[in-house]
């Protein structure tokens, strides 16, 4: 299942679904992200609709947490334009915890 044409989808890992009522995805209408939708706009919107989810992804300075990765398709947004990476209708952004720890 893909997001509606006019939406982008945030894929949420299992460990964060307590903040989405169990849902594995959050769909956001592109019109909620302004004239030039970006990853930053998506996360800013998330801070309004799911603040406890957003602060697991970004710190209070709105920087991506060090061990959190966001993938747009097969690309880590850190390898694109980070939070300035543009979004287009129908895309999926996946939140993935980095492989780290002991």
């Amino acid at each position, binding site marked *: 299942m893909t997001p509606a044409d006019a939406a982008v989808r945030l894929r949420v890992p299992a460990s964060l679904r307590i903040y989405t009522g169990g849902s594995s995805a959050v769909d956001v209408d592109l019109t909620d992200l302004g004239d030039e939708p970006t990853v930053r706009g998506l996360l800013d919107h998330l801070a309004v609709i799911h603040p406890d989810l957003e602060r*697991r992804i970004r710190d209070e300075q709105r920087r991506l947490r060090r*061990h959190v990765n966001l993938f747009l398709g097969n690309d880590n947004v850190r390898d694109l334009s980070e939070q300035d990476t543009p979004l287009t209708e129908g895309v999926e952004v996946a939140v993935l915890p980095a492989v780290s720890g002991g």
Partner: protein
Amino acid sequence: MTTLLMIGTRKGLFLARSDDRLSWSLDGPHFGMNAVYAAAIDPRPAASGGSTRLLAGADSEHWGPSVFRSDDFGASWQETEGGAIRFPVDTGEALVRTWQLRPAGADQPGLVWAGVEPGALFRSEDGGETFSLVEGLWNHRHRERWMPGGGGLCLHTVMPHATDPDRMLVGVSAAGVYRTDDGGKSWEASNTGIDAWRAPDQHPEFGQCVHKFDGQRDRPDQLFLQNHGGVYRSDDFGATWSAIGESLPADFGFPVAAHPHRPGTAYVYPLVKDEHRMPPEDRCRIYRTTDAGESWEPLAEGLPQQRAYVSVLRDALCTDDADPAGVYFGTRSGEVFASADEGASWASIVRHLPDVLVVRAAELP
């Protein structure tokens, strides 16, 4: 009377309970895979008809740090939407870890202090639900020159004066002790007499690697301090410090705990030295003074005495508030020892936990 022991580990919080301080039940982990460096038992709400509140700082390696609270002894936990501790945007900083949660005195209900990394103090007036940055310390002229210790630039100790709410000390690694006499508006370094280990100047105004200090309410100006090298006592609430570790087998270590109601009595866990962080003779021994550091006695009954390569972190030693006092410590190898007789004898009450980062104990009402 039930005693509750909070055990924060690198992979979650465990709660131990006992009615006799000899046999214990254990539940957890709460916040599995989160490092719990800070824990506190706040009995003040119970004194006014509410419930004892538990506070825990839990840090996810991936998802960041948070402060949780429980008013039902851990059956459920709540956190503040948006986060309880957040640096103001204009600081440019973000919370790395909560190192210390410290309820203030009984005459200041609701007031809770938090020491965090990067070195800062936060204040809550609603029992730990929301916090604000203590600007007076954050704006101190020394702060930009503070150097992090091995654990990070952590504000690890908060010590409100027992009888004067305007006076308080904090400890920062590796900046040393700072003191306020006006409720946190202004601060001064308070390290007179404490050596700066491996520094060209042995007695700088700040820069000492203070590991921990503690005091007690019946002699509120008397404090005991474990430095990176050296054990110290202050009789003037931190204005000056005197070395008291000469008769210990080693004066390196991390934790120190004052007896809850017996002035002059304190506990430390010596390690050989900075370059050899094992207990002397590979024997696990707490050392106790009952004469304010004039002499120290080893406490070993019930503790491993052969090939014991056991170390104890700065917040992993504590007492409860009972009489006789219970004394507790947790090891980096995941074992917790308890004494119901002020340290005369010990028993292992839980093994095979992740590394123990913090222990806190209290009798429940």
